[in-house]
């Protein structure tokens, strides 16, 4: 009988612009009350936001570590300006924490150092995963778009790396040099006045037939639906995935983490957890379509009837 350890829980970086105190207090509570094993922190979406969390990084890191959590620092997803390149270089050179790479510049700079790879880097196959491992990648969080058939294959063919799967949160779908969020409020990126901070859970984009579709988060576009892999956790654990990533939304993330932990530990049925998750995060319908090789917005119920997030 093989005894595979139950996957650990990772909290991804907060993708949204929350003001400093809100961001700090959120992480304090994660430190004090949540069952997360690893917490990824640091601005990932827009370099202009860096100063909101900077004053609180040290105290948040300290509090998380004192609670026994492993802290990982996230790098920017889109690096074009010299200032942004410098930010990534300084983080790689100066940090004594594990770093999660979210773009190719970080991957280049981290060559030879143990590091993690975030879900915004394109890892679609084992050949890529193994190449990254040969350069120092230890843990890779796979992109949310991957179907389970790909996850299974990549994990099986890359025994030297730990894999993580994006199992909760609005899915990052795109990033642009242009800020659609600022643009929707009559601004451009360079004079944005941080208007994305007005929507701490994303700005809803509806179709002209009033279907909920997407949400804007600064230069990032996320799904309207919330990825929820709960009924799928047993399969993920069974194929050797070693960590489950929950991406913070503006809701009770301690409660979300406890649900996932309970399902992983076998103390709560997935169906019951799904019902409770809908109460904890009512803002978005749940989806798991990508995992089942369908459109990402789809919800594939365990009874195999299929509805779409578009209608919810």
């Amino acid at each position, binding site marked *: 009988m093989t005894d595979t350890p139950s996957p650990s829980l990772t909290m991804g970086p907060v993708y949204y612009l929350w003001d400093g105190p809100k961001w700090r207090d959120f992480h304090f509570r994660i430190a004090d009350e949540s069952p997360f094993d690893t917490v990824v922190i640091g601005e990932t979406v827009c370099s202009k936001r860096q100063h909101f969390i900077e004053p609180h990084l040290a105290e948040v890191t300290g509090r998380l570590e004192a609670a026994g959590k492993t802290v990982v620092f996230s790098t920017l997803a889109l690096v074009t300006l010299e200032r942004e390149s410098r930010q990534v270089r300084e983080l790689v050179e100066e940090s004594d924490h594990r770093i999660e790479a979210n*773009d190719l510049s970080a991957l280049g700079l981290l060559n030879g150092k143990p590091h993690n790879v975030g879900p915004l880097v*394109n890892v*679609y196959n084992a*050949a890529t995963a193994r190449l990254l491992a040969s350069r120092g990648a230890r843990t890779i969080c796979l992109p949310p778009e991957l179907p389970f058939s790909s996850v299974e294959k990549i994990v099986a063919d890359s025994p030297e790396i730990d894999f993580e799967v994006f199992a909760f949160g609005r899915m990052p779908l*795109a990033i642009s040099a*242009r800020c659609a969020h600022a643009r929707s409020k009559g601004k451009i990126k360079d004079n944005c006045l941080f208007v994305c901070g007005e929507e701490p859970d994303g700005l809803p984009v509806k179709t*002209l037939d009033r279907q909920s579709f997407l949400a804007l988060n600064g230069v990032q576009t996320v799904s309207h639906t919330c990825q929820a892999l709960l009924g799928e956790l047993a399969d993920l654990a069974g194929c050797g995935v070693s960590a489950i990533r929950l991406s913070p939304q503006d809701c009770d993330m301690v409660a979300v983490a406890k649900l996932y932990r309970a399902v992983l530990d076998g103390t709560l049925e997935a169906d019951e957890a799904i019902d409770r998750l809908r109460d904890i995060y009512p803002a978005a319908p749940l989806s798991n379509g990508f995992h089942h090789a369908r*459109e990402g917005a789809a919800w594939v119920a365990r009874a195999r009837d299929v509805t779409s997030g578009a209608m919810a």
Partner: protein
Amino acid sequence: MELICPAGTPAAFREAVDAGADAVYCGFRDETNARNFPGLNFSRDELREAIAYARRHKTQTFVALNTFMRAGDEEIWYRAAADAVALGADALILADFGLMAHVTERYPEQRLHVSVQASASNVDAINFLVDAFNAKRVVLPRTLTIADIARIAPKIRCEIEVFVFGGLCVMAEGRCSLSSYATGKSPNMNGVCSPASHVHYRKERNELVSELGEYTINRFPAGEAAGYPTLCKGRFDIADDRAYTFEDPVSLDVMSEIDALTAAGVSALKIEGRQRGKAYVAEVVSTLKKALSAKPEQRTALLAGLRGLSEGQKTTSGAYEKRWR
């Protein structure tokens, strides 16, 4: 300055060569390239003939294998790379690290270009690909201004190619699953964005509604020209405001900036449009070729003739101009 031209069919390929392309880029008829549309692209035999034709006219052929290998189906991409090399492709345009590693190891003499789909948008990213895979050229993502390009050019150890004309991705290329979210077909894994198989039009009262999968992408009142429902060029509602949320139905045209791009250190200009017909390719390539050798004051008149060919007949300089952001 080289002019790199698209070909979705053997006929368009010959037109591009005849019109003076320095290189023509194309792909195989499958998911190994990012324009995997019905009726487009090349069989192995067609590519062999195309490369022979190009050689006779001193034109290069670049083969785009610029999607990401689906786990378990890597052989499709490996075979495409092997065939492209054997058929004599002058360069392979690649996006997937796993495929780049494979090509570098198996075919060390093969010239490798970094596809725009790889999203190498800065000095450290580009030099990583040069060092790891001996990349000779990078096609820059449409996220940089001309000033950004001028800043990074002296610090990178390969040539720079940029898009100057044709369709425009609003999102960082290769990092967008919007279409996949709505249709289940992935630009990265299946080579299709906003695929025709998932497009529907319906009449509702006096409006034409365009849909992608289950989602409405636009509604056109009678009298307004209806466009194809490319997801990021759709019209959406944010609160009570109705707008082209991401980008208007425009196409890219920065040919007026040729001199600035040259000064910035760009060595090749790329035209988008493998899905376009041969007449379009012939006209765009011959006009841009003339524009390259024309004096700046003659250029404007030459380029004005192309306006009618652009999507929605409106153009933008996209991210090359700072205020687009």
